[in-house]
């Protein structure tokens, strides 16, 4: 059977080609007519920028593997295509070359990949150990935060000035004679009873659920002295605030199902398992303010109004030099602009960022005030400087809404917030 198939093959290939081009045009067409408000352009196609200390190692490993596999891929596919063309069935050709193999050749292509892979495995172990067994794990200077996932928001607990976390995720049982002690250290009466055990089972369960909902959604043990000064909130969904340029320990747990703590730009990912506590260590080498600043452009104050009218400036943030006299007004401005001090090392963001106020009157007042303060130029950026925490583990129906805003403050600002007391050997104890 010589191969008459090759002709229909070519024909159908051509037909497919034409069809495909038509489809491509259609896609582009449909897409642009649909796009409307949707983000345009094809987006960024490579690893997102890396902002953590251990990240570059992961990226270079990625690149090493990328080039090794790319080489293999190209080699294999090229050979394949060459063979297909060169050894295709031709009418004059009667028989293929008769061979059952070649031991030497086969040994080569067994051993070579094995060596390459062994090297990769070793490299991988090194980077992995640096990340998971980071020396930061016993750095007294590390900032600690406990992230507790729940459907579909995060709770963040900071240890407070004592630098120690209390106990969380302890919930009452229907047979407990007493409710857990309250935040003031006194016994609690809830639903008119001293404890769930005073109620019949069904009512006790209902009372406990109500107690959790209203009093203690995180199951905090108020009696634990370590937890007294913790910074926590009943309602989930707070932003995560972390210091930059300082080792961070994130402890992970969950109230209900498995969640995942993923910071794409920091190459950090770990599941938050209910009933267990995970630990990750990393250091950010960029603060949010630095990021905003890096993305900002300088605008003379005179041109600010015009600049803000551009549609691209819709979410613009204005950065002003706080060191200029008169600007230090705590920034409770109606415009909700975020102010930043670009030059001072104490760069800070006041985070009550509302959208830019389009009212020209208000705007002009603000600009006037800035001028009065002696400023001639400001910087402007659309980059708010915070990162997005992504939950990468399927955790239920609202999994795709489970994000949190992550802000990296400069170390001083982090200290000021009293989220924890860093054991800076060099700094004086916080007041």
């Amino acid at each position, binding site marked *: 059977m010589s191969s008459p198939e090759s002709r229909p*093959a070519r024909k159908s290939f051509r037909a497919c080609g034409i069809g495909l081009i038509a489809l491509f045009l259609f896609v582009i067409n449909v897409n642009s007519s649909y796009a409307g408000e949707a983000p345009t352009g094809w987006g960024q196609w490579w690893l997102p920028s890396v902002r953590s200390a251990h990240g570059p190692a992961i990226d270079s490993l990625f690149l090493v593997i990328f080039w090794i596999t790319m080489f293999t891929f190209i080699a294999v596919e090229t050979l394949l295509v060459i063979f297909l063309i060169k050894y295709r069935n031709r009418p004059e050709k009667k028989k*293929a070359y008769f*061979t059952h193999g070649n031991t030497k050749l086969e040994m080569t292509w067994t051993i070579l990949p094995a060596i390459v892979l062994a090297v990769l495995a070793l490299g991988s172990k090194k980077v992995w150990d640096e990340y998971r067994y980071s020396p930061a794990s016993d750095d007294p200077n590390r900032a600690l935060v406990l992230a507790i996932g729940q459907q579909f928001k995060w709770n963040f607990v900071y240890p407070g000035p004592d630098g120690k976390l209390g106990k969380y995720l302890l919930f009452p049982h229907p047979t407990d004679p007493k409710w857990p002690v309250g935040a003031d250290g006194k016994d609690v009466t809830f639903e008119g009873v001293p404890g769930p055990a005073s109620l019949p089972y069904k009512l006790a369960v209902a009372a406990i659920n109500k107690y959790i909902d209203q009093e203690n959604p995180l199951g905090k043990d108020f009696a634990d002295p370590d937890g007294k000064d913790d910074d926590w909130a009943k309602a989930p969904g707070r932003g995560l605030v972390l210091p930059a340029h300082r080792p961070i320990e994130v402890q992970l747990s969950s109230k*209900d199902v498995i969640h995942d703590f993923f910071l794409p730009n920091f190459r950090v990912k770990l599941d938050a398992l209910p009933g267990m506590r995970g630990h990750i260590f990393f250091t950010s080498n960029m603060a949010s303010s630095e990021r905003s600043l890096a993305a900002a452009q300088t605008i003379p104050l005179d041109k600010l109004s015009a600049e803000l009218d551009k549609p691209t400036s819709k979410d613009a943030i204005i950065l002003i030099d706080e060191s200029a006299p008169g600007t230090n007004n705590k920034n409770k401005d109606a415009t909700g602009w975020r102010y930043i001090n670009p030059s001072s090392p104490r760069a800070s963001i006041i985070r009550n960022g509302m959208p830019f106020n389009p009212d020209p009157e208000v705007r002009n007042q603000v600009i006037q005030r800035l001028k009065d303060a002696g400023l001639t130029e400001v910087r402007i950026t659309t980059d708010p400087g915070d990162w997005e925490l992504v939950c990468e583990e399927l*955790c239920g129906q609202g999994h795709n809404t489970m994000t949190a805003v992550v802000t990296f403050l400069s170390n001083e600002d982090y200290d000021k917030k009293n989220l924890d007391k860093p054991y800076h050997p060099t700094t004086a104890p916080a007041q």
Partner: protein
Amino acid sequence: MTAIPHSMGHAHDDAHSHGHEHVELGFIKKYIYSCDHKIIGIQFLFMGLLFMILGGLLAMLIRWQLAWPNSSVTPGHPVPILGALMGWEKGYMPPDFYMMVMSMHASIMIFFVIIVLLVGTFGNYLIPLKIGAADMAFPFLNGLAFWSALPAGAIMLAAFFMPGNAASAGWTSYPPLSAIQYNGGGPTPFIYDVSKLEYQGIGQAMLHVVRPDGSNWSAVPVISQFLSQTLFIGFICAYYINVGNKYANRAVAVVLSLIGGVIMTRAVQHVAFDGQSCWFFSVFWLGFSSLMGAVNYLTTVIKLRCPGMTMFRMPLSVWSLFITSLLVLLATPVLASTLMLNLLDHHRFTSFFEPFNWVLTNQIQENSGGGYALLHQHMFWFYSHPAVYIMILPAMGMVSDILATFSRKPIFGYRPMVYAIAGIAFLGFIVWAHHMFQSGMNPTLGTTFAVSTMFIAVPSAIKTFNWLGTLWRGNIRFTVPMLNALAFVSMFVIGGLSGIFMASTAVDVHIHDTYFIVAHIHYVLFGGSMFGIFAGIYYYYPKMFGRMTNTTLGYIHFFLSFIFFNGTFFPMHILGIRGFPRRIADYLNYTSFSDLHNLNFFISMCAFGLGVSQILFAINFIGSWLWGAKAPKNPWEATTLEWETESPPPHGNFHKVPVVHHGPYEYASPLVEEDYLPQTRWVEGADKLVHKH
């Protein structure tokens, strides 16, 4: 276990008389309740293809949602037909529905398409034919495997009609998420309420019989469950009921299977009360079917090889199915056990996987707690990693056969190929935790598993390069099966190489649970297994149905599939490198990923193209059956035994026992005029040639 049908009255007394009494089998035992491995194989084929349409349509829904996510930024695009049917607001798909679609797409594709097609269909069809046996070692057990797969499928489908939706916890069903009953919703039907049909008309009284009080099942799943269970029990009855008279036999069998059907249907409804429990139970049940198949295949290969068919003269497809069966045999039970424990947890009897102090939406859960969520993951992947090789090895085997046939050249390095299959299988058992690098398990354990995972690329390398070696200096015929087989090789390499990224614990930190994984999945499962299946179907179609397929349609189907496949799944690598999370209904919620909207749109368009291309396959499949040219015995001029008998082979396969004289791939042999030397044809010295090279 020795489930060989004996018509109980008389079978054993004359077990060894080789009398020649011919009792024709009735239509039912010949074509429906058949014990013939070929019929069973074809039954599995239809089952797999039907499920594939469903799985594919679900994939289309996934892509629909991802092309036009309904968010604050962009409006959705009403889903055609389904949107109206479900009464969604403006026809937009809600995110919880997306979760279900995604989970069911994967579950159906993996458990009811790939495994059914590769192991069920080709395992059944090819093993006896290729080793020169008349049938499987246990034909009845073989039939039972198919008929018990049906109820499993029916339970999986029933999930769609359950209150609170079908399973929505991904195909991995990690607890504690999968332990949530009714997917967190109340027990109210979610899907278009078919239960309205229930209490009207004559069906009412009958429905009461098969539907216990308090059952959550609506009419359609109850009826389909009842049918499949009755057919299942009926199969047993068809062979084991012997009261003497033919008609009495039938009557008793029908009555018994109806009774059995009622009992089973009622029992199933107690076990599976919502979508997730349906999922657990269905896969659990399917496991039994797989096990029966595996025991049968292994025994057949060990015992029923025809004279001269030594282990190292078996075609690679049989080798791969043999080793696949070993994987099924040893891995599936572990899945069964974890599914059972999960089911108990789901019913709130136990808490193997739920921690202490477990709270859901601020409600304490009334189970004891104290379990470990990670335990399920370990046991699941202890099965599911070997399972991914269950899903690729048979395809590799068939592709090896096809490549050799159409290169007109012996397979390059036959023995290393066999050892590579065995190596993959062995390593497959010690790599499972590479799915759990970021799950919070012990990081050192991660390193161990990373090393073993890396090394699984070595046997894969042997296979890949040997395939290339087979093509080298061949005489390549570009038939439709060959093109699909070549696509298998090139696409599997891409999928396999992306596996190396993930095998590195450190790189996996960034790409775990992103679309990089989704790209990998589809490159190995669609690019690999599915193209392998296409190749197998095109290759064996003449043998199965006695008709040739249409070549032109085959080419168009292949080229379109190949191009659209790459258009769909290649860009997913890019998404993954960006960190784009998988299993999300709406990525425009994320500021980090909303710029990838156009890329997603492009992917969706290609996916629709991929879906529509499959219609050509369907047309070809059905059309060739009706109008295809009659197939000769050996249309591809191949050497293995299945081509020595007519197309389709008769009941009993061979007219006389074939005798095998040499290896399976003697193409281009210098000893004969033709460029192929069938395994049954004796030529002096052919056997020696193998060892020389």
